[in-house]
Structure formats: structure tokens, C-alpha cells
């Protein structure tokens, strides 16, 4: 009886402890999201303060707007171009560094070095690369001409392919170390005895990686995929500062850049920017849900692997 009273008395303090968080969440996060939704159904622009509701008109206009569709395509192209090599490189590194037979040294040093570009201000990185690739006498051009790769300097930022490639490369360069570290952490959590059993059975390194490591890494790979996608869909700093205005020919204008330009440049079309934000949110939600579904629908390789191991290991 006494105990119960005590519990009740103290547990109310819980509300006080979480109150500041909840309050800040309501003011700074929930309200702005609701407000953004609301704005997407109005015609608010410029310095107006009057709201007129226009229904779904903005959505219809935006989904047939050439520039928005282009930004949508650009965002996906750049993200895919960076993600495939990023996850590929990270998985190759994981394979090497988790291989019990190779016993590689210096994993700690490599992690620190590979992760370094990730911590540096993206804005600074973008301006740095725009200077490195500058025409006609940026360091990259000087090197390429010096070693005879090119006859004369190349204007990287006049070429759509080259500019997109550079953005994708920067993203890859900034993030593969992060992915490598996260996947390694996942791989270290795999039970050693699985590998030992496979080794006894004479499995090759490649087989062990394909049949044990990869299937068991699936959940954490999905996590990396989804977080990378959410980040990639919001790409802004690098493409915004690498060239001006998403040049050449708006080829690296991402969805967030589109939102920014609509809201803060020219006619300040808040209604358009808000609508694009809502569409972006929908894209992220739909794709994330699809990914979870696809990744989980395949019979879990996890169980298969264990079964094989058991067959192999237990004579």
C-alpha cells in the first residue's frame, strides 16, 4: 500500500522531465510541418499575408512542371550514381576486413581516414571541389594536362555528365567511410562460431562472405539504404555550391534546391515550395515503405544460412 503511493507520487515527475522536449517538438517541428501542409493548399507568395485556399491546384501544377520533374530526376540520378559505388566499395572493404584468414592490420587507421571527408563542412567541400576542377588552370586540369591525359584543359562545369559525375563522386567520397564503419559494426556482431564451422568445412572466403556475412547484414544494409535515401533526397549543400544555379542547364538542381529557389528567390512562391516539400515527404515515405517490404519479403537468408551452417558444422 505504502509502496504504491510512493510510486504514484514520483511517477508524475516523468511529465516534468519530458515536458521541455515535447514543448520544443510541438513548437519547432510539428507546427511547421502542419503549417507547410496548410501552405501547400494556398496561393501565398511574395510579401502577401492573405491566404486563399486553392485546393489541389498546386499539386496538379507542380506535377506537370518541367523544372520540378527535372529536379526530381536529377535527385534520383545523382543519388543512385553515388549509392551503388558507395555500398559496393563499403561491402568490398567489409569483406576484406572481416575475413578471418587474411587477418588484415590497420582497420582502425583506415576507418579514421575514410571517414574524415564526412566530418568536413559540406559547404566548404563544395567550394573546394569547384576550385579544384576549375577551368582552365585548376589543379585537376593542370594534372591531367601534365600527364598527357588531356591535350588541353577541360571545362568540367560546362558538361552535364561531368558535373553530375563530380557531385555523385563527392557524395560517394563523403559517405562510403560512414557506410563501411556501420556495416563493419554489424559484421562484428555476427557469431564467430558460424565462420569457424564453415572454415572447418573448407568454405572459401568468398563463400563465407556470400552465405554468412551478406545475409546476416541484410537488416543493417536496409538501414543504411533508407538513411542514405532520406539524406540523398534532401541533397542541397554540394550541388548548390558546386556551380551556380544548378548549372550547367539545371542538371544538378535537386528537389531541395528547387524548394529553396521557389521560396527565397524571384517571386517567393511559398505555396509552390510548400507543395514540393509535401511531395518530397510522400516520395520518401513511399520509397522507404517499399524498401522495407521488398527487403523483408525475400525469405530471410538469415535462416537459410544458419541451416546450411548447421548441416555443415554438425556432423
Amino acid at each position: 500500500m505504502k509502496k504504491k503511493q510512493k510510486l504514484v507520487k514520483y511517477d508524475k515527475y516523468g511529465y516534468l522531465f519530458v515536458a521541455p522536449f515535447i514543448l520544443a517538438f510541438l513548437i519547432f517541428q510539428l507546427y511547421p510541418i502542419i503549417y507547410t501542409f496548410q501552405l501547400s493548399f494556398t496561393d501565398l507568395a511574395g510579401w502577401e499575408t492573405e491566404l486563399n485556399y486553392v485546393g489541389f491546384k498546386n499539386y496538379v501544377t507542380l506535377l506537370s512542371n518541367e523544372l520540378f520533374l527535372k529536379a526530381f530526376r536529377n535527385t534520383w540520378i545523382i543519388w543512385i550514381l553515388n549509392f551503388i559505388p558507395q555500398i559496393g566499395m563499403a561491402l568490398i572493404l567489409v569483406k576484406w576486413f572481416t575475413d578471418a584468414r587474411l587477418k588484415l592490420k590497420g582497420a582502425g587507421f583506415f576507418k579514421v581516414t575514410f571517414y574524415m571527408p564526412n566530418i568536413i563542412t559540406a559547404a566548404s567541400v563544395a567550394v573546394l571541389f569547384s576550385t579544384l576542377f576549375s577551368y582552365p588552370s585548376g589543379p585537376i586540369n593542370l594534372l591531367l594536362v601534365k600527364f598527357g591525359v588531356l591535350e588541353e584543359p577541360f571545362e568540367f562545369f560546362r558538361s552535364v555528365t561531368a558535373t553530375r559525375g563530380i557531385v555523385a563522386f563527392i557524395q560517394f567520397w563523403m559517405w562510403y567511410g560512414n557506410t563501411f564503419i556501420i556495416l563493419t559494426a554489424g559484421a562484428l556482431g555476427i557469431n564467430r562460431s558460424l565462420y569457424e564451422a564453415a572454415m572447418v568445412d573448407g568454405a572459401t572466403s568468398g563463400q563465407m562472405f556470400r552465405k554468412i556475412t551478406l545475409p546476416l547484414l541484410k537488416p543493417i544494409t536496409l538501414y543504411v539504404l533508407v538513411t542514405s535515401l532520406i539524406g540523398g533526397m534532401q541533397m542541397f549543400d554540394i550541388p548548390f555550391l558546386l556551380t551556380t544555379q544548378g548549372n550547367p542547364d539545371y542538371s544538378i538542381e535537386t528537389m531541395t534546391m528547387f524548394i529553396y529557389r521557389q521560396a527565397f528567390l524571384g517571386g517567393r512562391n511559398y505555396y509552390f515550395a510548400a507543395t514540393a516539400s509535401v511531395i518530397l515527404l510522400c516520395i520518401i515515405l513511399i520509397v522507404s515503405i517499399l524498401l522495407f517490404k521488398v527487403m523483408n519479403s525475400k525469405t530471410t537468408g538469415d535462416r537459410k544460412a544458419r541451416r546450411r551452417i548447421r548441416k555443415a558444422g554438425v556432423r
Partner: protein
Amino acid sequence: MKKGGRLGKFYGLRISWIYLVCAVLVILSIIPFWILIVNATRSTEQIQQSFSLIPSVFTGYNYDVLTGRGFNIWRGFANSLTIAASSTFLALYFSALTAYGLVIYDFKGKNTIFAIIAFILMVPTQISMIGFYRMMLNLSLTDSYIPLIFPAIAAPATVFFLRQYLLSTFPKDLVSAARIDGASELGIFHRIALPILKPGLATMGIFAFVGSWNNFLMPLMLISNEDKYTLPMLVQSLKADIYRTEFGGIYLGISMTIVPLLVIYLVFSRYIIAGVALGGIKE
């Protein structure tokens, strides 16, 4: 029989190949920063004539060019530091408070609060930026640091992390014992929980600080007064026409924004890598 016979003579070859690939990646990670720092010490003529990895002697000259054109780097430092330090403090203190509240007390609606935290983790910040900006405009808070600092009070990733940390390291009996000694609830949190949380707070603190320091879009959206520019915003001004031909100055300007981060990184790299490995760290 010890080292898999299958690998045999290719073993050494494979190892060399792997180290070669890693060496290339190491160079790739370092070289842009190396070129940057070297070029910050060279004159624009040197930079445009030849490529070099050896520092020169024009740092002072570049610095004069840079500051002579209104690139107020120290002001930028002070501004970025103010915002990053304040928001880190708020994020750490209030996240610890929230995590402690969720771990120690059993109150109604606890699960709802959890759901909310998980929900914010999934929703990207940029989705609400238009509403956020308009709201600040209506409150006349644009061009102030308030909207850059106070939202840090609700930092869901930090709450998650600290909650896990408390669950695994904090003996709940301490609370009962302290209550018997007549300590207040907040006093227990301050005097017992915070010291125990210190290592976790340090890890999360580094991430919160770097995240705020690197934040570009939010300040760009809100701040218009040049005296209030943060470092990433100043870097943007290096792309303006007045620096068009002053490559030495541009490199120096970028260097000055990057070198402090590199130093911080190398000092705390062990904690940072451990923090990344724990996953769930959101930029």
C-alpha cells in the same frame, strides 16, 4: 594446415592487392585537403602555373587579400561557435533530461512519447522548412539565432542514444537510495545521473556540435545580416566575383573553415568512429 591451404601462393599477392586499394583510398581521402592547405600558402600565379604538393610562403599575402575584401573570418568563427556551443548544450541537457524521465518514471503516455520520437527520427527536417521559415517571419525572429539554437531542445537521436546508455549503465537503486537521503528529483538527476552519463554525453556532444557547425541551409534561409553570417555562409561568399582571380585567398578562406574541424576530428577520432559504429547518428 593452419592458414587455409586454398589461398596458397596467392595469399601474399591478395594481401598486397588489398593494401594497394586501401592506400589509394587513403590518398583519395587526404589529397583534396592537402592540395587545399598547400595552395593556401601559394600565390595565385604559382597556383595557376603549376601543380605542387609543397607549401610556399604566401600565406600572409593571401590573408591580407582575403580580409581586405570583407571576408570577416573571425566574426564568422565567433558566430558559428556561439550557435554550435549553445545548441549543443541545449541538445545534451534536455535530451539527458528526457531520457532520464523516460527511463526512471512509469507514467501514462510514455509509449506515445516514444512513438513521437521515432516519428521525428524518420521525418526529414527540410520537409518543414517552409513552414518553419514562415513561422519565424510571423514572429519577427528571422535574422536572429533563436531559430538556429532553440530547436536543439528536441533532439530525438540524442534522446534515443542516452536512453540506451542509461538503461545499460544506470543502476535504478541509486534513485531510491538518494530519495531516502532526501534528495530532490532534479537534484538526483543533476548529481547522480549526469555524471554517469558523461561518456555518452561526450560522444553525442561531438556529433551535435559538428552537425550545427556544418549546418548551411537553415542559416542561409534565416540570416540576412552579414555580421551574423556563419562560417559555411562565408565560404559561399568566396564564390562571388570579387575573389574570381584570387585563388590563393579562396584556398586560404576554405582552409580556415576546415582546419579546426580536422584538428577536432583527429583529437576525438576514436570517439567519433565509435559513435558512428553505434549507428543511428543522423546528420
